[in-house]
Every structure is written in C-alpha cells, then in structure tokens.
C-alpha cells in the first residue's frame, strides 16, 4: 500500500483582505495531482482572488500555500512560477502589438534580447502545434481571434513547465465550438500529468470536464473538492447560490441555469405583446469595411416594442459591426436606420441615446467601464452627457443616486468612490446594466450581457431584460450561448458573413438554427 500522492496545490487557511473587504476567509482546500478541478461560485465569491494567491499575485493576509507538498513564499510571482504554478487571467494580458513568436519568447523567458523573427518563429512553432494552436507566428496578437489568444496564453504557461495550470473563466470569452476545443486541450494536458484548475460558471461545463468541483461562496469554501460523480447539477446549483436563494428560482430559470434541458428551446413566445411601429428599423444597411470586424452587407432588421430579438451566429460574422452601426460608431456605406420613428441615419450616438438607445457593449472593460475611474463616475456618465456640459452638478447627490441604483441591481461594492476595476467581473457587468437599463430605454442592445456572470446574476439579468421588454422596450440580444438566446428571445435572427441568414420563431429548432449559422444555403423561416 502506498501513501496517497501529495496534493498538487494546497491552500491552508488562506485569508485575503482588501482594506475592509474580505475576499477570502480561512479557505482550506487541496487539489490532487493530475486531475481537472473546477472551482465555482458566484460573482465576488473569491475565485479570482484564490487564483491570484496561488500565482503569487496577491499576498494573503494569513495562511499558507503548498505546491507539491512544499510550502512556497506567498505573494511572489517568481516563487509560484518556480514551483510550477501558472495562471491564465480572466481578461488576457498579452501585449497587442507583439507578434505571436515575440509574445512566446518574452512570456516564456521574461527577458529581452536580440532575435530574428525567423529564429523565434521556428523555436515556437512545434510548441504551439503540440497544443493544436494553428497560427502564423509572425501575426500580431491584436489581429488574432480570442480563442487563439487564449491558446497562446496556455502555451506560454506550459513553456514555463507548469505543473499546476489555473484558467480563470476561460470559457466566458469563447464560442461553443471553441469551448469544445479548449476542453480537448485541457484533457490533453491532463494526460501529460498537468494539474488543471478551471474557474467556471456554467454547471454544464463543470459536469462535462471536471474530475472534482470546489464551491466558494462569500469568500468561504462551501464544499469540495467533491468527486464529480457524487454531485448532481441540482445539488451544485444549490451549493453555489445557497439554499435560501435556490428556493426562489422558478423551474424555468433553474433549468436554464443548470443548462441540462433539451436542445429544443421553448422560447419566450411573447410575440403577441410586440405591437406598434418598429423601435428599430434598419433598411438595407451596409457598412464600409474597417479593421474592427466583418462589414454589414445589406442588413434588414426590425424590432418592435415589447420584443426580444436574439442574434445568433458564429463569432465574427458581423455582430460587432451591427452593434457599432446602430450606435453610430461604424460608417454606413448605404441604407438607413430609424429609431423610434426618427430617421437617425446621419445622427451621432448622442442623438440616438437621447431617443432612448442603450448599449451594453461587448468589451466590458474597454467600452463599458473606465476601470481606473470611480464607480459613481462610471455610473453617471450616461446621464451627465444628456444636457449641457457646463451645468453644475452635486457629486454627493449623484453618488446617492448611484448608490440607490447599484443597490437595486444588488452590486456588491464597498463605496461608490471605489475604482470600477476593483469589482469582481460579474459585479462590474452589473454596474453597466444599472447604467443602461433605465425606464427611458427604448432600444437596449445587450451584447453578451451575461458573460462572466454567475448563475444568480444571469437569472437577474434575464429578468431585467424581460421586465424592460414588458415595459415596452425593444431588446437586441447578442449572445454566443444558444441556450441563452433560445431561452429569452422572442425571435432569433442568424447572422452569417455580415448578412442576415434566416429568422426563426419559437419553438426554436437547434438543428436549423445551427445550419443557418454555418451554411449560407440553408435559408429557413418558421
């Protein structure tokens, strides 16, 4: 009989405090080597903080970290690296202007030096190929799709001889097919003996990939690591949100959250509510090609009040340009856009927002928030822009209004002077929602509104969008998550290569929607 193997990573009573905020309290957890471990929990539960402690980016207030049975000095990236712990961040941190080969070289050695492009490319080619990352090594990071960037981050971590690889919400930025690819990569790493810790939100994903699961809530470990065979989706959902909240979810929400329902979406089917003239009416809109995405090619789109229209499509088929065109941030080549009865084709965004356009943008940390500014400034930007720039404001009054609004949206924060960058990912998203989903909203563009949100917050956002819809707002929902689209859309429009490639009504048939997403020939309408 042999001793059980030493845990790959063990946290012993780790506590982390940021000022008055306790992000982790007395977390004791140990991860067996060579397995895939999932860490789950609500927004602000402390998952990222846990990962940052293991990677040496955060110095715990108390407690110790062992890697392979050896205690490491906490709070030093170099120590964690030397012990073989690598972290791939929630929002990637690759230098956008570097080429792939340069990124690999610099990421791996941390040193500068004199190289030729060619020698670097040769050096890293085989390494990336081993992970099935197909990429030209002389391309720049900023020109690469997100899943490739992620592959490079993982590859970079592996060059460092990672024995413990932590991925912080790797699936949040990926389309369903890329998620499958990521999971295949992760399984291959497991075969190589690497211990992988995945921070995830979706229960379906946890059950699909992990060997064990650990649940954090409010900075404490609730349970885990539990062998995956011993937990059901139901039980996991309850562990994450806590029994008290779990009881308040209705069956419909629960099914959607757990993500184990049948592939035929029932849809919201509220089309009878949608009446009156269109809030958004796009006629044959084409945009000039630019570097930011596939151009629109004569898109017609109408959304009436009281209707949620979902946009389905493989990422990069013009969804971003669609949002930018409606927001006056992309140049139109032809066509017209009407908003609530007004022709706004040549109007700037400010005018469109004044009519009731609201935007939850794709890039939360860039387009949605200024991370180094305070919460109240971020929250108030939209209102401050309505009206004269030189009018006097009372910051204390603005902050009170902000506090009220953030409370309504149950954002977990300390005070409104706090920087937006200090919120957990999900709470940051809620700040944007609090700003954009108000009573005057006529058309709400929600681009990936639940990306990175925990299941409770996701349900919350869906409810908010439905309520806005029931108030008579029109909603354009763009999501790479088909379950989400099917669950709350009244109508689904598929985009392919910058064109509208089919329109579907509930009940949605996943097979025909899927076909329209990939095949230009399959034009369907129900």
């Amino acid at each position: 009989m042999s001793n059980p193997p030493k845990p790959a990573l063990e946290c012993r009573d780790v506590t982390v405090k940021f000022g008055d905020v306790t992000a982790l309290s007395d977390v004791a957890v140990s991860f067996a080597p060579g397995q895939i471990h999932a860490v789950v929990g609500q927004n602000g539960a402390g998952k990222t903080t846990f990962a940052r402690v293991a990677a040496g980016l955060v110095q715990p207030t108390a407690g110790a970290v062992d890697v392979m049975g050896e205690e490491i000095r906490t709070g030093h990236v170099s120590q964690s690296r030397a012990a073989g712990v690598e972290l791939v961040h929630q929002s990637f941190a690759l230098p956008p202007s570097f080429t792939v080969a340069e990124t690999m070289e610099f990421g791996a050695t941390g040193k500068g030096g004199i190289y030729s492009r060619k020698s670097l490319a040769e050096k890293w080619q085989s390494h990336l190929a081993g992970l099935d990352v197909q990429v030209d090594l002389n391309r720049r990071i900023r020109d690469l799709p997100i899943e490739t960037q992620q592959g490079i981050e993982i590859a970079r971590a592996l060059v460092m001889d990672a024995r413990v690889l932590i991925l912080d919400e790797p699936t949040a930025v990926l389309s369903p097919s890329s998620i499958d690819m990521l999971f295949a990569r992760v399984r291959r790493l497991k075969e190589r003996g690497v211990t992988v810790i995945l921070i995830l939100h979706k229960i379906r994903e946890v059950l699909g990939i992990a060997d064990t699961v650990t649940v954090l809530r409010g900075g404490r470990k609730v349970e885990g690591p539990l062998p995956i065979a011993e937990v059901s989706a139901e039980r996991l959902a309850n562990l994450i949100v806590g029994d008290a909240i779990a009881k308040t979810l209705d069956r419909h929400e629960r099914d959607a959250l757990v993500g184990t329902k049948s592939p035929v979406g029932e849809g919201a089917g509220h089309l009878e509510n949608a009446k009156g003239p269109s809030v958004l009416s796009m006629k044959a809109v084409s945009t000039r090609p630019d570097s930011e995405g596939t151009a629109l090619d004569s898109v017609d789109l109408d959304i009436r009040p009281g209707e949620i229209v979902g946009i389905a499509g493989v990422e990069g088929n013009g969804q971003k340009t669609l949002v930018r065109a409606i927001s006056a941030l992309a140049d139109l080549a032809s066509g017209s856009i009407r908003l609530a009865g007004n022709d706004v084709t040549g109007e700037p965004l400010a005018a469109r927002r004044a009519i009731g356009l609201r935007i939850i943008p794709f890039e939360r940390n860039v387009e949605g928030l200024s991370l180094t500014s305070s919460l109240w400034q971020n929250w108030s930007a939209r209102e401050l822009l309505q009206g004269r720039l030189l009018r006097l404001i009372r910051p204390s009054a603005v902050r009170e209004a902000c506090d009220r609004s953030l409370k309504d949206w149950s954002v977990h924060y300390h005070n409104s002077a706090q920087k937006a960058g200090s919120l957990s990912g999900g709470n940051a998203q809620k700040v944007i929602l609090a700003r954009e989903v108000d009573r005057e909203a006529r058309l709400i563009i929600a681009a990936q509104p639940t990306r990175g949100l925990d299941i409770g917050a996701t349900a919350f956002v869906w409810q908010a969008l439905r309520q806005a819809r029931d108030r008579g707002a029109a909603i354009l929902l763009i999501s790479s998550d088909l379950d989400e689209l099917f669950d709350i859309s009244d109508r689904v429009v598929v985009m392919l290569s910058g064109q509208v490639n089919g329109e579907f009504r509930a009940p949605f048939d996943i097979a025909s929607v899927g076909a329209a997403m990939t095949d230009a020939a399959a034009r369907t309408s129900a």
Partner: protein
Amino acid sequence: MKDSLTTVVRSLIFVAFALILCALVFQFAGYNALTMLWAVADGAFLRSGAIEQSLRWALPLFITAVGVGISFRAGFFNIGAQGQFYVGAICAAFAAEAFKGGPAFLVIPALLISGMLGGALWALWPGLLRLRSGTDEVITTLMGNFMAGLLLVYVTSGPLKDPSGSGQQASSRPLDAAYRISDSLGLSPTIIAIAAAVGILMWLLVNRTAFGVLASLAGRNGTMVEWQGARLWKLGLSSFLISGALAGLAGTIEFMGPNGRIASGFLPAHGFTAILIALVANLSVLGTAAAAVFFGGLASAALYLPIMAGLPAAAIDIINAAIALFITARSKLVDRVLRFGGRPS
C-alpha cells in the same frame, strides 16, 4: 476626501525624500547641507517679506499649473505651457501697443483677454493635430515651446523692440504705468483676485460640472466615453484650450505686473515648474494651490541661496529636478510602507 489627503501626504513624503537626497548631494559636493536647507526655508518662508515674495512667484505658477492639470486630467500630455505662456505675453504686448491711450479699465481687461487668447491659440494647433490626425501632442507642444521662444526673440528685437534698451537682453518697450497691475515686487490685489478667480472657477469646473467628470473619464478611457455618446474631440479640445489660455494668462500677468515688459528668454522654467506642480498635486486644484506656494517659495529662495549659503542659484533647479524624479517614479515602496491599501495595479 480621504483619498486626496492620502495623495497630499504621499507627495509630501516624496518631496521630503527629494530634499534629503539634495542635501546629501550638496554635502558631498562640499557645501554644508544644513546651512543649505536652512537657507531655503529662510529664503522661502521665514525671513520677513519672504511670504510675499514666495506668493509673487506662486500665483502665476498656480494659474499655469491648474491649466496643465486640466489637460492632463483629460488625458492630454500638454507640455507646452512654456510656449503658451510666452505667446500669451506676446499677444498682450501687441495688444498693449494697439490699445495705447485707452482708458485703463477697458485696456487692462482687454490685455488679459488677449493674453488668454494667445495662449489658447498656441494650444489650439497641437490640440487639432492630436484630435484630428492623432499627432502626438507631446512632440507638437514641445516643439511649440521652441517656436514660441524664438518668436519671443523676434518680437523683442523686431516689432516691439525697445530702442532705449541696454542691448544685453532684447526686450519690449515698457508697458504704460497706467496699465500695470502691480509694481515690480509683483504682488497686488488684482493679481491675487485673478488667481483666486481662476482657482474657484477651475475647482468648480473640475469638481462640480458634468464636463469635469466626463473629461476625467475620457482621460482614463476615451473609448468608454465614446460609447456613451460623447464627442471626444470636444472634451479634449476644450481642455487643451483652457490649459493654453491659463498659461497665456500667467504670461500676461508677468508682463503687466512685475516685469512691465517682455524680454527674450524671460522666466524660461515657468512652464516646466508648473508641470511639476501639477504632478506633485496629483492634478487636484486645491493640491495645486498648496504645491504652487511651495515651489513659489523655492523660486524666491533661489535668489537668496548665493548670499546665504554660498550656493549657486541653480541649486534650486537641482532640488526641482530631484522632486520631479521622485514624483514621476511612482514608488510602490512608499505605498507598502505606509499601507495605503488597495490592490497594487
């Protein structure tokens, strides 16, 4: 509130470090460090009349520095305060020629306004270049400083030349005494009133208007403000123009007040000291006032160093440079020592 207090304390610690470093340098260079520090303190604030002298330097510096802070907040690194200061003074000097003989109560405001317009003009073109075609404003405004310096040489030895000048330094014809806003000591109720008005207005602008909040957001993340529907160039250009106008106003005050004329190459470090002040103050208006008094004190002490401590007046430049060094090298160490909290970013 706690935030701004922390900032001030933090800055003061940096300044103290800088002074200690300077003292060490001078000690090794063979001077007596304690005598030097004492001479600085004495010359700046303790000697009788020192406060007035310090304020004489502090007020124009404050005006320019507030403007610098406004453009930095909006995310534009306008380092052209020196040039805008010069062009402001030059425009005021031309206006003085043009309005000669008019009643003082009209001419004085007209000159002040011309100076502000001149400074704004010297900020306008780098602003437009930056916002319309993305030209780096650091380069254009720096270039603008040299151009303005040469322009000053030209006007003082050409169109505005004082024929009776001694010839050592080209300078303009003196301003009529009726239009002077202070004697050569340089502190007068008018100047104090102008500085106070600038301070109050700019404090309101930064802290109590929609513009202030939005400009600061735009400075930190322009894309986000664009997605809110703001016209970035409007926020950016106004900030640029305000900073230019204030530097121009400071130049005009120097012209109409203590100097009474413009001379080629006068006050060559004004704009850069103002940038330093804005940075020490972390761009807050109140902090700028405090820092301006401090640096005004140093400027006035510079005149006493040779007498009191046998040091060259340039010692003050070394002190300024040392402070700049410590302020710009944002030290994590200090934060850690003082446990100011927050995540190290």
